[in-house]
Structures are given as C-alpha cells and as structure tokens.
C-alpha cells in the first residue's frame, strides 16, 4: 500500500536488572502511518514471537495517554518527537520512510531497568506515600459544596493534578530530577483549601523522600516542561520551593 514505511529500529535490549544491555537492530517493514508507535512495536514483536525469539518488552496499558505506564526515549526524546503526547498516542505519521529510530528506556538511577525498555518507577509511589494525600478517612466529611473554591484556583489545581506520573520529566532532565512530578502534587494540595492543614508537613515529607530516592536537583533547564506529555508547568517547581522553605521557616 502506498504511504507505507520501511524503518530501522535500534532497540535497547537487556535481559534483567543485573545483566548488561546493548542495542539490537531490527527492521520494521510495511508500517502504516496510521499505526501508533506501540502498534508498530507490536508488529515487530509478532514477528519475533513467530521466530520463537523473546519479544521486546515495554510498559504500556491504556494506550489512551492517561495511565502513565508507557515510556520510551525515542531518538533521544522521552515520549518521542511530538509535544504534549505520550508514546502510546504518538503515530507513525510523525516519521518518514527509511528513518532509523533509536529506542531506549528511561535512564535514571532512581528508575532501574527491569527488562529491555521496562523500568522500575516505584520510587514515584514512595514519594506519594510520604505525603501526597489529604488525611481524611472515609465518611464524616462536609458537604461537597460547603467550601466554595474559586474557579481560577480549582482550574489551576486541576492543571497540576493532571500529571500522569510517567516519569518523562526525570528522563528528560540531565540531573534526573523529579521536581516537576513532586511539585505537581504539592501544588495541587497547596492551592486547594482541603490541602491547607498539612500543607507544609506534606511539602517537607515529599521533598525529603524525593532526595532519598536518589533523584537529582533542579538547575532550571526546563527540559521537564518541554517533554511533559501533560504540559505540567515549571511554575509548580517554584511553588514547591516556596512551600518547602516555608516549612523549614515554620519549624525553626
């Protein structure tokens, strides 16, 4: 069919977390521009399985750009060349016939490789567990309309809350900093009245956990914002820093 592409893939293959990995070259022929990037990999994997070879392992689930499970550094960019787009929503029309595409996992100490392109992002969960919540139990809460919240504030909180926890910000950062991810959650709660009682304790706990996990510091290159598939703004980081300093001030 016209418009189909023949591509060369250089894919990072690594058996497990303790075995060194390497790039392996594959051909991806007759690829339709309407395929998603992951569907292109499905086709390659189907061929590998037919040949009784181990398919390329990658994380993915919803394929709608919302679960945050898919990753992949494509030609050096987390989630590939298209802005504000997750890998699963990237379509092959973003590439051209005879392209060579380099595919790597997220690279960060705090995201060790599990197999091939699959990494362990449980450090993100542990940061959330350190304080990414409002301490209310089920039941006994006020009526939902009891506390009016300005639409501007609610919308701003929603913009921060829209983070999907994929880790592209870390993969994009030369320091492997997780500040965009952490600040998005801290901001959501710092903005909303429900988050006020634990505002500073939360900021402190989450930042400390972030450091403990081995993520780097922020040196304001804004690569995270540029690569974030949900367009989370670096202004969240400014807010997080303010929250963290205030937390320290209040303590002293």
């Amino acid at each position, binding site marked *: 069919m016209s418009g189909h592409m023949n591509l060369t893939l250089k894919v990072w293959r690594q058996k497990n977390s303790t075995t060194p990995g390497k790039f392996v070259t594959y051909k991806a022929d007759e690829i339709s521009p309407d395929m998603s990037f992951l569907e292109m990999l*499905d086709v390659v994997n189907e061929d590998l399985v037919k040949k009784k070879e181990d398919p390329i392992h990658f994380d993915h689930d919803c*394929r709608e750009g919302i679960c945050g499970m898919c990753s992949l550094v494509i030609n050096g960019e987390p989630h590939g060349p298209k802005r504000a787009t997750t890998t699963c929503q990237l379509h092959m029309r973003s590439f051209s016939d005879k392209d060579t595409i380099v595919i790597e996992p997220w690279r960060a100490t705090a995201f060790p490789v599990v197999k091939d392109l699959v990494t362990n992002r*449980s450090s993100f969960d542990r940061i959330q567990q350190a304080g990414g919540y409002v301490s209310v139990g089920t039941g006994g809460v006020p*009526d*939902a309309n009891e506390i009016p*919240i300005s639409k501007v504030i609610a*919308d701003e909180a929603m913009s921060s809350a829209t983070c999907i*926890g994929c880790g592209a910000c870390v993969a994009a950062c030369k320091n492997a900093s997780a500040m965009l991810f952490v600040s998005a959650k801290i901001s959501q709660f710092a903005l909303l009245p429900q988050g006020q009682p634990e505002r500073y304790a939360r900021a402190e706990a989450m930042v400390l956990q972030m450091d403990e996990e081995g993520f780097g510091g922020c040196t304001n290159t804004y690569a995270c914002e540029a690569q974030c598939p949900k367009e989370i703004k670096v202004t969240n980081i400014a807010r997080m820093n303010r929250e963290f300093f205030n937390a320290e001030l209040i303590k002293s």
Partner: protein
Amino acid sequence: MKLDAKIPEGPLAEKWNKHKFDLKLVNPANKRKYDVIVVGTGLAGASAAASLAELGYNVKAFCFQDSPRRAHSIAAQGGINAAKNYPNDGDSVYRLFYDTIKGGDYRSREGNVYRLAEVSVNIIDQCVAQGVPFAREYGGLLDNRSFGGAQVSRTFYAKGQTGQQLLLGAYSALNRQIELGKVKMYTRSEMLDVVVVDGKAQGIITRNLITGQVDTHSGHAVLLCTGGYGNVFYLSTNAMGSNVTAAWRAHKKGAYFANPCYTQIHPTCIPVTGDHQSKLTLMSESLRNDGRVWVPKTLELSQKLQKGELKAKDIKEADRDYYLERKYPSFGNLVPRDVASRNAKQVCDEGRGVGKSGLAVYLDFADSIGRLGQPAVAAKYGNLFDMYQQITDENPYEVPMRIYPAVHYTMGGLWVDYNLMTSLPGLYCLGEANFSDHGANRLGASALMQGLADGYFVIPYTVGDYLANIGPAPIDASRPEFAKAKAEVEEKIKTLLSLNGTRTVDEYHRDLGHIMWEYCGMSRTAEGLQKAKGLIADLRNSFWKDVIVVGENEEVNQSLEKAGRVADFIELGELMVDDALNRSESCGGHFREESQTPEGEALRKDDEFAYVAAWEFKGINMPEALHKEELIFENVKLTQRSYK
C-alpha cells in the same frame, strides 16, 4: 444451591439503613486480627483497601501494573453521577434510582440500585474532601453536566479526566494507609487462583511478574476488584492488560458468573482504521451534550463521502439525517448507549455510514461552536478533541468527528448478593467485576459511581458481618489446600511454556475477538450463536496444541502473561455465547434479532426472563449449570423503555 440475594425486607428507602443496623460489627481492638486481601486497585479496589485499612483491618492489596495508579479506572472520561440536585432541576435519590433501573432495561435489583443512588451523594463529598479538583462554577460551587439516559444534570466531572482524578483520590487514600503500614501493597503481581478451605475463600495464589515466583497469600476474606472482561472482544476501549483471569479462576473454584452476555457497546468511539489496530479509543459520552449525530439522508451522498468525492461540509442541511433527534425527540442525542449504538449500526448497515469504510457516523460540533464559540467548547472538551486529532489527524473543530460503536464495559460479572459476597463464602466482588447494579445496560457516569460506592460505602459495612461470624483466629496457610492450589498454578504455567506451536497468542486473541464481535456483539441470533459455539470450541482446542509461548517462567515474560489471559478469555467466550443463547429476549445491550418491536427496539420478555442468569462451573468440557435469581419489582412498573 438456591441463590439468596439477601435483599433486606422493608420499604425501598429504608432497606440499607435497616441492614446496616442488622449487620454484625467487629470491635475496634479485634479488627487488627483480621487480614483482608484486595485484588485490583482501580476505583473499587483502592477505595475498599483504603477504607478497610482505616477501620483497622490488615489489608494486602495486589495489582498487575507497576503502580496502583495505573488501573484502568484512570481512563474514564466523562463523569460521575450523584443525586445532589445542586442544579435544582428535579433530581432526587429516587429519580437516580429510577433512571438507573430503567436504563438497565429492568434487569437489575431494586434494592441494590436504590442503595447505589443513596450513597452517590456521599461519594462526591468524600472526593472533594480528598482534594479532587472537580469542575466548578465562577461562584465557587460544583458544576454539573448532563449525560445519556437522564433529563437532569447530575454528572460531576473534572474536564474529560474524571476517572483519573477520582482514581488519584482513592490512590492517595491508599498511599496514606501504605505509609501507615496498614496496607501492604504488591505491585506487578497477578492473581492466578483463589484458595478455598472448608468451603471458604481463604487466600490467593499470585505470580510475581518480575521474578516469576508463585506465592500463596492467606486472608480472612478475599475481595476481587478486577474490572471487566471487554477484552474478550480483542478490540475494546479497555486497557491492554485488562483481563478476566482473577474472576474466571474464582468462577472455576465455585463463584457463579452472572449475565455474562451483557456487554456494553459504547456509541462514540473512534472507528477502526486497519488490521494493526490494538485497541479502540472512546470519545466521552459527554460530547453528545453539544455534538449532533448525523449521516446523509441518501445512499448516494454517503457513497460519495466514502469515496472522498464529497466532504461533510458539502452536505446541505436539508440532506442530513439527524436520526437520533428525529426518532427520539425528547432525549435526542442523549439517548442511552445501547440505543445510540444500535441506531449507528442500523444506519451503517443501510449503507448510509461515512468515512472510508462506511462504518462511521458524524458527531458534529459546528452548531455548538457557532453558539458558544470555540473557546467555550475547548474548555469543556479540549483534551478529547486533542486526542481525536492525535489519532485521526483530523481537526474536529473544523470537520465533524467520525465515530462508531465499540466494546466498552461489561455489565455481567461474578454473581454477588446484597453484601457483595459471591456464591463462594468469604469471596467478595466489587466494581465492574461484579454484575450487580447496571442490569442489561449501564448509563453513562454510573461506573465510577458504582466502583466507589462499593469500595467506600458498602464493603466496609458488609465484610465486617462475615468477619465477625467466622472469628479472628489466624488463617492457617499450611493447610494442604494452599500447596495444592499453588502446584496447580505452577503446572498450568509449565504446560503453557511447553507448547511450542506455530500461532501467536495475539493471533488467537484476534480470532476470538472476530467471533465474539460477529456473533455475540451488537446484535445476536440463535443461528449465529450456535455457530460461534462451535468456532470457539475449535479455537480452544487449537490453542492448547498450537500456541507459541516463548521464554521462561523465572523472568519478565509478557508472552506468558498474555497466554494465560487469552486462555481464560476463550473459556469465558463460550459461556457468554451460552448465556446469550439462553436469553432469547432482547434487553439493553443484549439484542436478539428474533425479539424486537415493530420499530426495531429491544423487546423484553418479562414473563420468561426477568431473572439473573447465574452460571455454575461444572468442570472442563462440561456444560455449566444455570441458576436463576428472580428479579422482584415492587416499586417500578416494567414498561417498554421509551426515549421518544
């Protein structure tokens, strides 16, 4: 065994309150002596795990994804219903109850549905308190929008990402309990069997998806919150990993499977583009608030559109058929999903579909953009429009969306009583995985409501009653039943890995999907279903001889994971076909061509089929036994559903 739904006696509005008082309690100091296993961490699982841990139980929670936040509830777009009546437009608990019963085509229990409507209001309060950023009006109060099957605005939403925000709320509550040490979280762990001791569920067998290790876990009760089985159709709006394995293995251990043939085909999805397609993408039903559905009036114009000789904007207003508005003037584009889907299929079958394949209808926003302006439309649906453009490379602000129905949700699931307990004592089932509240068709924005109702506000009460009855003595995991279940799981894995066939798991899955879509999809006939039965049986036999599963158990092995899930889907497919054959009436999403009104609407046979079909597994290659739970309607009158 006679099915006892345990619906409390008394007037509808008092049943739940009375029942809560009748349920036994576990005293606070004893709660820490009980272990509860929760499988799945979507809305139902995460909310249940968090709420039970808050009460003091020791919870072990499991998910196959790398984090509980990835569960597919995250992808729900449009909203969550609640009978708050904030807009002052005539809503009430009773109206939500009535709309849901009617929307489900009178195939659900009055008692369950009323309770769902009753606790819906608490859910919104709870989520707001957790910091869920619902959409608000300029005055600072919560905004509502309308959804299919209702004439009031009762749907709360967070842009087109309501599921995400609600799940992250439940995930945050779960995280708090993990931090406090009350929940032990097992990620990348797949449940492969339930352990039954002395007729009670007392544990599960899991496979660690990183190391391949098979483990046993014991608990006083087991909660399955493992979602729906729409992926039996291969192509669906479900996540790639969504599967029936936990529920199916429990079914084979004694939990009845209810109404498996009730599947929801969602009307507004992006049409299929080719054989490479791995999943289908939903466009939220909320779009039908402002989008108008149409196809050309004539075959001739449709053919020109299909060939690309004309574009949508070339079709004059007078030549367009806004068929939903024409046929259903009072609900218009907001008819329930089953009605909207069937009508889309009908116009496409007539040849009036659009797009290259002719298997699509238009969802047109030109009027709304003209009336409200593009920024207002973008504020409401921006992320959905972006997603559409991403996938189709067309700009829906300029050309109408093309949509077609796709498998989305399964109303069937494990049979549960009013306490959400399956027919296997000690085994509970919550959320989409159970069958309980949506009858034969689910209304939009009700799935999130049910998942959270079950997890936050039902199970914390009902599980206590069972636990109080069995007592807090520790579960003995050295009983031989645990080792036996583990050995069986390991044996099954070994068998799969030994199959050195010629066809891939995906090929089998795709074949199964074609059979199910063709014969057990939007419309069904006895003849087609009979044919499907034979085809699936052949497929099952072939699978166990000729499938390829590469690699080993002791590693990350996605090939092995998929093989186990598809094997279960094939068995489930056979049961769905049996159930669809048995139910020779049309109701909701189950449309039997033999049973329709002169206008082509679903024709129920209440005298024969006003029951829940609960199937009991009898052994491999044996027909399942059908148990009927009569549905008793004391409050609503069963009528032919009309949205005209």
